[in-house]
C-alpha cells in the first residue's frame, strides 16, 4: 500500500500494464523525454525505451489515427492528448474510425486503445485547457468514456481501460491530479467500466457526480449533514458511457430526490441523461423535481473568473436544500 497522487497512480497503472504486456505502447507529444507535461508518463521512456514510450510530432489526428493502425497490427496503444481542448483536432479520427471499426467490420478489425487526456477547469490554465467535453464523446456509440475521481479508482480504471477490448476515452480531472493522496494497493486492481459506486451512503437525497466535482459534492454532503441535518447519498459515476443506470435507480428509489452535479455545460450534458433515466425508471418515486448543478451554457470563462463557473459546495448545498424542502 502506498500513498499516491492521481498522477502517480495513473503512472503506476501504465507501467504495470507495459511490464505485463509488450504490446502496450504509450504515444503522444512530450510523453518521453519530458515525461508528460503533467509527468504522468514519468520513467516510462527510461524503463521501456523509445519504441514503447514514443514521443510524437505535434499532430493529434496522427496520434489517434496512427494508434488505430497500431491497434490493427496487434498493439494496445495508450494515446495521450495533452489537453482535452486539443482533442477536437483528432475528433474526426475518433468519430470516423476509432469507434466504428468493430461494428462496420463485424469484429474483424477493432480498436482496443486508450485515449487519455487531462480535462476540466480549476488549475488557472489559459483558454482551451479547461473544458469538460465528456458529453460530446459519451454521445458516440462505440466508445467508453471513463472519468476517475481519485488516485485509487484512477489506477484501477486505467488498468481496466487498457485491458478493455474496446476503445476508451479516459478523462483525467486535472484539478485532482495532485490535490490529494490515497492509499493505493501494491497489487494491481481493476474496477468494472460502466459501474459507478456509492461514495457516501445516505437516505434523504441522491447527489450524482463524477470527476473533480465529486470531491466538491462530498464536501457539500458533509455540510448538509453538519448544518442542515440532511443525510445525502453521493454516487460517483466513474463511467459516463456506459452509464450505471441501475445504481442511479437503486439510490433514487430509496431517497426520492436527486441532484446531478458536473462542471460541463448543462444543455445535453451527462446530467440530462441522468435525469432522463430517473424520469424513465423512477418517476413515481420522486418527491421533488430533479435538479442540475452544472457549468453554464457558455464557454468556461478565462481563469481569473473560472471559479464563478465551476460548481462549488455552496451551489450544491443550495440545490440539495431546494430539492429536500420542495
Amino acid at each position, binding site marked *: 500500500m502506498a500513498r499516491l497522487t492521481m498522477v502517480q497512480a495513473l503512472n503506476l497503472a501504465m507501467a504495470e500494464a507495459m511490464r505485463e504486456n509488450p504490446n502496450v505502447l504509450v504515444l503522444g507529444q512530450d510523453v518521453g523525454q519530458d515525461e508528460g507535461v503533467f509527468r504522468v508518463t514519468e520513467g516510462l521512456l527510461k524503463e521501456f525505451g523509445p519504441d514503447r514510450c514514443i514521443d510524437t510530432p505535434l499532430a493529434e489526428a*496522427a496520434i489517434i489515427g496512427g494508434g488505430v*493502425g497500431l491497434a*490493427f497490427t*496487434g498493439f494496445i496503444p495508450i494515446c495521450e492528448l495533452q489537453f482535452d481542448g486539443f482533442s477536437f483536432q483528432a475528433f*474526426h*479520427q475518433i468519430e470516423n474510425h476509432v469507434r466504428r471499426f468493430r461494428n462496420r467490420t463485424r469484429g474483424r*478489425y477493432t480498436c482496443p486503445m486508450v485515449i487519455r487526456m487531462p480535462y476540466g477547469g480549476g488549475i488557472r490554465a489559459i483558454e482551451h485547457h479547461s473544458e469538460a467535453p465528456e458529453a460530446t464523446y459519451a454521445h458516440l456509440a462505440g466508445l467508453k468514456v471513463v472519468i476517475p475521481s481519485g488516485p485509487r479508482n484512477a489506477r484501477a480504471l486505467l488498468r481496466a481501460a487498457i485491458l478493455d477490448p474496446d476503445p476508451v476515452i479516459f478523462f483525467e480531472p486535472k484539478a485532482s491530479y495532485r490535490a490529494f493522496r490515497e492509499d493505493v494497493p501494491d497489487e494491481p486492481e481493476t474496477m468494472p467500466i460502466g459501474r459507478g459506486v456509492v461514495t457516501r451512503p445516505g437516505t434523504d437525497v441522491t447527489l450524482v457526480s463524477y470527476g473533480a466535482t465529486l470531491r466538491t459534492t462530498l464536501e457539500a454532503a458533509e455540510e448538509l449533514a453538519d448544518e442542515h441535518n440532511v443525510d445525502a447519498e453521493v454516487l460517483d459515476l466513474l463511467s459516463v458511457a456506459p452509464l450505471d443506470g441501475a445504481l442511479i435507480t437503486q439510490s433514487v428509489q430509496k431517497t426520492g430526490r436527486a441532484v446531478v452535479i458536473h462542471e460541463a455545460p448543462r444543455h445535453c450534458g451527462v446530467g440530462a441523461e441522468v435525469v432522463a433515466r430517473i424520469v424513465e425508471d423512477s418517476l413515481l418515486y420522486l418527491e421533488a423535481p430533479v435538479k442540475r448543478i452544472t457549468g453554464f451554457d457558455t464557454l468556461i470563462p478565462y481563469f481569473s473568473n473560472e471559479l464563478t463557473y465551476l460548481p462549488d459546495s455552496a451551489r450544491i448545498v443550495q440545490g440539495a436544500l431546494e430539492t429536500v424542502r420542495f
Partner: protein
Amino acid sequence: MPREPLKVPQRIESLSVLTADGRVDKSLEPDIDDADLGQLYKAMLMSRRLDERCLMLQRQGRMGTYGPSKGQEAASLGIAYALAPHDWLVPTFRETAALLYRGWPVHTWMLYWAGHEAGNGVPDGVNDLPICVPIASQCQYGMGIAWGCKLRKDGHVCATFCGDGGTSEGDFHEALNFAGVYNLPLVMVVQNNHWAISIPRSSQTASQTIAQKAIAYGFDGVQVDGNDILGVTVAAREAIEKARTGGGPTLIEAVTYRLSMHTTADDPKKYRKEEEVKVWEERDPLLRFRSYLRKKKLLTAKVEKDMEEEVTAKLAEAVAKYEQIEADPTAFLRHMYADMTPELQAQMAELKAHLGNTAESASAPTEPTQVG
C-alpha cells in the same frame, strides 16, 4: 555564399513504360510472367465489367449510389500485384481492381454498395482494410499500420491510397510527416484522377506535381503514368522493396483519369468538357494493356472471348448471391462493443419486439415507399 539555391537530397522522378498505343520501353519493361499478365488483365477486365454492371443495377434501383473506378484500374492493380499477400492494403473506394486481384469476392464488393456491412467482409488470408469514405482519413491508420510493421520488424509493408483531392486534407500531410519522421514502410499512393467531384487537379494544389510533396517530408516521390500497368508495377516494386528493406516511405503519384462520374449521384457534364474525356479515353489503361498483350500474342480473339464469358458468368453469379443475402436486421446492435452494454441489450429487446409486432401486422402487402 549569402544566397544560393538549396540542394535537397530527395529525388522526384517521372516514369512511363507503356505508350498509349501499346509500345513498350524495353529498358524499363518489368519482368512479369505470362500467367501473371493474364491474371492482371482478367482482374482489370472484371473491374471494368463490374463497374458497368453496378451502374446498371443502380439505375434499376437494385443497388445504392455507386462509385465507379473506370479508367483507374491500372493505378491500383499494379500496386496490388507488387504486394505480398501478408502486406497491408488500405483502400479508398476506387481500388476495385486491386481488391479483386487480392481475392475479394465480387459479391462482397456488390454488398457494400447495396448497403450491407457484409461488404466490408475482408477475405481471410489478406491484410486489407475495407473501403474508407471520409477523404484521406485512412492515410493516418495506413501510416499507423506501417508503424506497427516497423515496430514488429515483421518485414511487412503498407500500401495506402488516396486521391488528388485527398492531398488537400490535413490527414494526408500528418500521415506523411509521421512516416518520414519514423522512416516507416509506407507506400503512399495518390490516384491523381484529375477531378475531386467538380474541382480539377489544377485548383486543388499549386504544386506542379503531387509527387513533389514527398520532398517536404524527407523522402522520395515518383510520378508514374497511372494508366500504364507496367509503369505502376515498376514504381510499386521499387517502393515496396525499399520499404521492406528499411529504406522508408515513398510517395507514388499515379496520374490517371476518372473516365466516369464521381458517383451515380453526380453528372460530370456540369463541370468538365467532353473533349477532355475523349483525350483520356484514348489512354484507357484496359485498351493499352490489351494492345500490349495482343502484341505479345498472349491475348487472342479466342482467349478474349473466353475471358469475357467467364467474367459475365461470374458477375451473374455474384449478383444472384448478393441479392439473396438475408441480413440479420438487429446485428448492428450486437457489434457496437465486444460485449453488449445493458442499454444495448434493452434496445435489442425493444427492437425485436417491434420487429415481431410489425411482422404480425404486415399481413397485407404494401407498395414500397418512393423517395424523391
